[in-house]
C-alpha cells in the first residue's frame, strides 16, 4: 500500500497540461485556510496541507477582524457552526503574526451554510469582505476548487456565485480537472492574468502547496 501511495503521489504530481497553466508561484507563511460556501472541500484542503507537512490556521467563517488578529485568530474558540483550529508553528510565527497567504476552498453546500447560520446571500457578502481584506492587506489569495462536478452543480448554482466572489480576485487558482471540465477556471485565469494550475486529483495539491510554501 505504501508503494501504491508513493506511485499515486508521483502520478498526481505530474500536472495535466491544460491550456493556460502557469508555474506555481511562491507564497509565504503563515497561512490561513478557509471556505467560500461552507462545503466540505476545506477539510480536503486542510488534509492536503497536513500531508504536505505545512502548518496552518483554519476558520470556516473568519471575519476580517479575526484575519487582522493574525496567527491564533484572536484566540477565538470553536462553537456550534463555527470552527477554529490553529496549528501554525508559534515558535516561528508567534500569535498575532499577520497572515501572508490565504487559501480559500470554494464550494457551496446548503447544509454547510445552514449549519453556520448562513444563506447564500449572507455567505457571498461575508466572502466578499474577506477577499477585500486580503487584497487591501496584500495577503496572497489562492482560490482552490477540488469539488469536481459534484462541487459545481447545475449551471447557475450557488457554486457559481462563490467562484465569482473569489476566483477573479485571486493571485493564484488551483483546481482539479473535474472541476474545470467546462474551462470555467482557465477562462477566469486567462482573463485576469492569474496564475493557474490544474491537477488530476485533489491529492495532487500536496505537491503544489509544497512548491508554493518551500
Amino acid at each position: 500500500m505504501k508503494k501504491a501511495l508513493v506511485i499515486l503521489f508521483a502520478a498526481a504530481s505530474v500536472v495535466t497540461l491544460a491550456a493556460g497553466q502557469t508555474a506555481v508561484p511562491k507564497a509565504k507563511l503563515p497561512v490561513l485556510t478557509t471556505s467560500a460556501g461552507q462545503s466540505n472541500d476545506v477539510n480536503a484542503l486542510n488534509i492536503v496541507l497536513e500531508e504536505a507537512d505545512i502548518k496552518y490556521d483554519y476558520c470556516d467563517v473568519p471575519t476580517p477582524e479575526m484575519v487582522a488578529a493574525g496567527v491564533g485568530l484572536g484566540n477565538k474558540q470553536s462553537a456550534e457552526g463555527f470552527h477554529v483550529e490553529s496549528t501554525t508553528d508559534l515558535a516561528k510565527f508567534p500569535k498575532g503574526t499577520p497572515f501572508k497567504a490565504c487559501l480559500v476552498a470554494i464550494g457551496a453546500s446548503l447544509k454547510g451554510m445552514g449549519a453556520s447560520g448562513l444563506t447564500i446571500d449572507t455567505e457571498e457578502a461575508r466572502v466578499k469582505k474577506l477577499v477585500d481584506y486580503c487584497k487591501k492587506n496584500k495577503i496572497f489569495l489562492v482560490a482552490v476548487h477540488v469539488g469536481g462536478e459534484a462541487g459545481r452543480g447545475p449551471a447557475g448554482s450557488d457554486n457559481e456565485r462563490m467562484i465569482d466572489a473569489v476566483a477573479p480576485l485571486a493571485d493564484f487558482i488551483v483546481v482539479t480537472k473535474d472541476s474545470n471540465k467546462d474551462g470555467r477556471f482557465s477562462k477566469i485565469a486567462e482573463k485576469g492574468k492569474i496564475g493557474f494550475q490544474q491537477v488530476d486529483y485533489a491529492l495532487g495539491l500536496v505537491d503544489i502547496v509544497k512548491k508554493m510554501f518551500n
Partner: protein
Amino acid sequence: MSAPESKPLAHPVRVKIVLAVLAAALTVAGGVPLFKHRHFGTPFVAGPGVTKVIKLSDYSPGLKGRFVDADVFVMEGAEPGGKALIMANTHANEPAGYLAVKILIENAVVQKGTLYIIPTINVSASRNTKAGDGYPLYYDIPTDWGRVRFRMGTRDASPLESWPDPDVYIHYPDKQLLSYLDLRNTNRTWPGRPNGPMMERVTYAAMELMRKEKIDLAFDFHGAETMFPVTNCIVAPQKSAKFATLASMMVKAMEGFDSHVEPSPQNFRGLSHREIGDFSNTLPFLLEAPIPFLDQPTGPKTVKLLLDGKDPFLLSLAKKKKLFVSYDANGWPMDKRVGQHMSTTLEIIRQFSKKTPDRAIRLSGAPKYADLVRDGVGKYFHDPAKAEPGRIHYE
C-alpha cells in the same frame, strides 16, 4: 304525464352479497401477494468470517419478540482491535447497501477487530411496498448457479408495526416537528427510546449496541436520487469529516469514482449521521449512491430500471445539466453502486486503522469497486444449496 310508479329495487340483498363477495375477492387477490412478500426471505449464507448471529433485541428488550427485531451478523477477528457497525435497508427501497452487506457476510474474513452487520435495520419497511407507485415486489440478480430473488421494500415501516400515524412526528429528544411519515422512517427516529414508538425502539437498540460494544465506526448505507443534491456522497458530522474526506480523496485517485463529502447538518434531527455522533462515541458515516429508480421524472418503475439505472428522461435532463451526478447512456448500474459502498467503507476503515493502530480493523475477502463492476454482484453470492443448513439465514 304522471310519473311512473317507483318500483322497489330488484333483490337488494342479492346485490349486497355480490358486492361483498367482489370486495372480498379483490382483497384476497391483492392481499395474498403482499402477504407472501411480507414473509419472503432471501438466503444469506454465513461465510467463513461470521462467528455468530445475534438479534438487535439482545441490546434492548423493548424489541423482544417483535416483528421488527433484526438479525446482527458478527464477524470477529482472531486479534482484538477496533469495531465497526454496518447497517443496510434503513430505506429498503435503496437496495445497493443490502447487496453490499450480503457480499461482506458471505465472503469477508476479519483478522483484527470486529464487524457487526445488520442487513436490514428497518425490517418492517423491507417487508412493505409503496402503494400507488407501481414498485416491483421482487428483483432477481443472476449468478453462475441461478437467480437470487430479493424483496423490494420501501422507505417507511408498515402501519402494521407502527399505527396510528400522528399528525406530526415530534422528534425525541429535540422536539423538532417532522413529517407524520417520519415516525416510520428509521432515518428520522434516531437516537430513539427503549419503549417509544416502534421505529424509535429499533434505533435505540442500535444505539445501545454501539454504546455497549464500543463501536468505533458506524456505516448507514443509502441510495439517493440523481436530482437530489445530497447524492453520490458520504454524509459525515464534523467528528467524522476527516476520515470521510481522506476516503473520498483516496477512492477518487486510486479507484476512479466520485463520492464527495457532505457535512451533517446540526439543526436537522433524527438522522443517523447526526444522532449517532451526538449520542455515542461512534463516528458515523452515511453513504449515498445514486439510484435513478427513485428519481421522479423516470419511465415505469421496473426491475430493469432498478438494476441498470438507465432512463431516457434522466438522460435528457443530464444534457440540460439538471442532475447532480454525471449521467450518460450507461445509466448507473447496481454493480457500480454496490462497489462504491464497498470501497468507500473499506477505505474509511483503512484510514481509521492507520490513524488509530490500537483500534485497527483488518479484513480480507471483500471485493472492491473494480471487482464488482467487472464481475457483477451475483458473482459474489454463495449458493445456499452448497452451504451447511445451519449457516443459512433468511433475511
